[in-house]
């Protein structure tokens, strides 16, 4: 029901409220006006022909002495009904025409598309006038003319929307099942495009009101003795210099009604396209941290660490109290060390890395007991200095290379701007450095690359460029968030090797975020496993195969087949699903899915305990031992 709530919220904007009130008023008027003022609007008053405004007739009278105010009010019904009918005719013709290409064969659908393109080339109002002349004067002709004239726009909209839905997998699945095209259209395509079409119908009513009034004004629409606003305007216009108020009524009515329908449509469209937060974000204070968030001990924090994080918490405002996706995380990365953060979707691993880079999106609030990057807390620095520190010493590499490079800029500009902004380097120096960096990420012919655009490179090459951008400064820490997840395995190997080499060459540390524990051990010295916003295990990559202690880490290892997995045995699967970040249960968050869980696990949060000798950390009341390969199937449940 979130959708309905959103619509309501959008309608609460000033434009939405005003438009809605006016439209409601017009509808009521259309119903009651002919009943209340119908008699008055028909009554001829021979002594008062063509009069100006008076107490008795505020807007004056027409050539038969009929009250113009009453006639304007009564005309609301006909004006609205005509406009709405015209739009409905247009929508029915247009949607049918636009939907045909998805139902017809290739050749017929091409012909339909060409027809739509052809008709779209004509200005709507001209087409309507032409059709009205051809079809003859009168309301029915006007409705048809206007409907046909507005159909191409609906057809194009429907065609575009339907084409995008028709390309989706669920339509493909329906077609593989052997469902008829008609059924696919009615059940799968139309319901998914109905919303934007209804919005456009609302907006179109506003335009149709204007267009219909225009036709009537020109004498093509409504014929006497019937009258709508356009007809009234036609009759009053020749007296505009004598009694301007006579023309005022229909004019104002047309403008207000047109604006109101447009405003309502726009408000609805905004409601559909944007997610309006239902709760205004409140700036959270440090005290807002939930009680169950505790700071984890971290023995590896040394004075020369590249990064020290203590008690890092990220909070978002939620409907029922704050949501805490990252819950008091502590870890450190030594100079030159490569640390992997492994977790599934929703574990908070990406948010945690964004918090370190000071990039948590609004309205998230980051609190931290201690954050030290190269010995200083970026938050203590003036903002210009902080930007320079993070801009030159921290490099970020993201998963989606297509979006983290600007598609409109040549690679040379994107590389050199880093040093031009932060180190005020001269252009030529910056370019020389860019060539050098591209060579260091082993891209062939770097000089040529500088003139290329991102789309000219493959995914792996783009990722190399992103890494080169990070290397334009003097990075001491590279944060790489799933940098290889969208790449092919052969390319993945090369990027991992490159990251390793960058670390060896520059001495930079690396924080590598991934969902794939095998990839993590390929690159990193140490692995931090996250679950529901906490670190549950912190272990040497080399010890991982000999047996992690946390049941979750063990299950993760056992759930993924490798090239040696016994094919005759079912994989270990973790029953249930990770907890919702908005409702993390008390005690150990993994307890509900853990086969070793006892009552204590559901109540008490296991602290992250340190093994003094190995500095292996684990947060579990029942740590396990031994190789994971021996784990066999537990139970299969719906996940």
């Amino acid at each position, binding site marked *: 029901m979130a959708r309905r709530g959103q619509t309501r919220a959008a309608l609460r904007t000033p434009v939405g409220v005003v438009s809605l009130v006016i439209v409601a008023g017009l509808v009521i008027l259309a119903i009651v006006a002919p009943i209340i003022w119908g008699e008055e609007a028909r009554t001829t008053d021979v002594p008062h022909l063509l009069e100006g405004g008076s107490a008795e007739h505020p807007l004056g009278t027409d050539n038969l002495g009929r009250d113009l105010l009453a006639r304007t009010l009564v005309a609301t019904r006909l004006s609205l009904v005509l406009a709405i009918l015209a739009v409905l005719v247009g929508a029915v013709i247009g949607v049918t025409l636009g939907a045909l290409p998805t139902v017809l064969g290739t050749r017929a659908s091409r012909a339909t598309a060409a027809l739509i393109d052809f008709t779209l080339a004509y200005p709507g109002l001209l087409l309507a006038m032409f059709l009205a002349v051809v079809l003859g004067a009168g309301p029915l002709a006007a409705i048809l003319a206007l409907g046909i004239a507005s159909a191409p726009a609906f057809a194009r909209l429907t065609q575009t929307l339907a084409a995008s839905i028709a390309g989706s997998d669920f339509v493909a699945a329906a077609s593989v099942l052997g*469902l008829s095209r008609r059924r696919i259209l009615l*059940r799968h395509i139309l319901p998914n495009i109905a919303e934007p079409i209804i919005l456009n119908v609302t907006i179109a009513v506003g335009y149709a009101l204007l267009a219909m009034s225009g036709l009537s004004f020109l004498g093509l629409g409504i014929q006497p003795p019937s009258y709508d606003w356009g007809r009234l305007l036609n009759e009053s216009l020749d007296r505009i210099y004598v009694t301007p108020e006579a023309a005022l009524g229909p004019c104002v009515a047309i403008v207000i009604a047109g604006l109101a329908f447009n405003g309502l449509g726009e408000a609805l469209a905004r409601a559909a396209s944007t997610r309006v937060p239902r709760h205004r974000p409140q700036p959270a204070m440090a005290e807002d941290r939930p009680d169950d968030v505790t700071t984890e001990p971290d023995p590896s924090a040394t004075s020369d660490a590249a990064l020290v994080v203590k008690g890092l918490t990220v909070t978002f405002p939620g409907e029922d109290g704050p949501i805490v996706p990252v819950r008091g995380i502590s870890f450190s990365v030594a100079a030159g060390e490569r640390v992997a953060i492994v977790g599934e979707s929703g574990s908070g691993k990406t948010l945690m890395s964004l918090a370190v880079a000071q990039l948590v999106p609004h309205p998230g609030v980051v609190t931290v007991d201690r954050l030290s990057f190269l010995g200083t807390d970026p938050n203590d620095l003036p903002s210009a200095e902080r930007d320079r520190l993070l801009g030159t010493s921290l490099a970020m590499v993201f998963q989606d290379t297509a979006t983290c490079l600007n598609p409109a800029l040549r690679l040379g500009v994107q590389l050199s701007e880093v040093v031009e902004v932060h180190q005020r380097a001269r252009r030529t120096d910056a370019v020389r450095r860019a060539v050098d960096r591209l060579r260091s990420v082993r891209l062939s012919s770097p000089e040529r690359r500088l003139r290329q655009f991102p789309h000219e490179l493959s995914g792996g090459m783009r990722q190399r460029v992103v890494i080169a951008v990070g290397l334009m400064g003097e990075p001491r820490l590279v944060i790489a968030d799933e940098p290889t997840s969208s790449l092919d395995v052969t390319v993945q190997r090369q990027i991992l*090797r490159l990251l390793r080499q960058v670390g060896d060459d520059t001495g930079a540390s690396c924080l590598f975020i991934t969902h794939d524990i095998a990839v993590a051990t390929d690159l990193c010295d140490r692995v931090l496993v996250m679950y529901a916003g906490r670190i549950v295990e912190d272990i040497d990559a080399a010890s991982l195969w000999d047996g992690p202690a946390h049941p979750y880490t063990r299950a*993760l290892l056992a*759930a993924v087949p490798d*090239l040696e997995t016994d094919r005759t045995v079912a994989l270990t699967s973790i029953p249930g*699903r990770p907890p919702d970040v908005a409702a993390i249960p008390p005690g150990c968050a993994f307890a509900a899915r853990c086969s070793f869980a006892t009552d204590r696990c559901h109540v008490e949060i296991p602290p992250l305990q340190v093994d003094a000798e190995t500095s292996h950390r684990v947060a579990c009341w029942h740590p396990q031992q031994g190789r994971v390969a021996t784990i066999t199937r537990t139970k299969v449940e719906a996940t």
Partner: protein
Amino acid sequence: MTALDVEDLSVRFQANGRPLVAVDRVSLRVPSGSVVGLVGESGSGKSTLARAVVGLVPAAGGRVRIDDADLAAMSASERRRARRQVQLVFQDPSGSLNPRMTVGATLAEAVGAHERLGRGERHDKVSELLDLVSLDRRLAASYPRELSGGQRQRVAIARALAVRPSILICDEITSALDASVAGAILNLLRDLRRTLGLSILFISHNLAVVRYVSDEIGVMYAGRVVEFGSAESLVRSPEHPYTQVLLDAVPRVGRGDHESREIDEQESLDVHSLTGCRFHPRCPVGPFADPSRTRCASEDPQMEAPSHRHLAACHYARPAGSGTDTNSSSPPVDRTPSR
């Protein structure tokens, strides 16, 4: 039980105004009741092949046979009935379920696709399907957005099973899922294969996953199957250099950095229009590594079985020399093409 035969299947597209052969005369057999894996990187044509088999993209040539019945030789209505037997499960379960239909409605529609059933019968069938994929029957009233990724993929599998197919094509069905969930889906597939006697074409870029579920594996590169053999044999003694590179690239826990054959990344899509072996510009043992091997750039290698273990399309095919190979590594053998 039913077998699927793909013979010389080709699919052509227009890419930037140039014709591109996405699938190039691929032949493949999924024997009844067995699982055949298809592995390859993006752009290798494996998904296009799947879509062509179920009729989502038109084939430019070749044949698809279901139990020796040629689809192309059938009338439209016969073909529609025959196609029911082959169902496709997609990668992304959030995109493959209609967001405006409940789980129950989605399954009921699929159940009614080929037979007329009463409301009560349909309801019973929907419950049976949910049981089959180990989902709570009460989920029938839920919308896809209320389910987790794993649950959605189970619904997608249940929908495919609704028309009682004998062949299931799984296109990267675990790639969009978290590791812990993906394992459960693979287990489900194992169970379904056994209980329903399904023949399965399992497509994935992940060689470890493909090896785990498949009896036989085909390796695709640039629209062609370049190596085909039993899962164990192919993984233990790959003969095509591309398969060897792929195997080396599989990340393994506890292995750390290791020496491996690496290949340069493909720079353009022109790979489809190369003469000779399409892998030769990147091949670690091809003409760029050994200039005497000019044949690779001129002669198209055919699928052969030099070692009688499995088929490989390479002029210099040989078992891998290191690491995963348990057989004795033989020196490269220069073979004359059988043409």
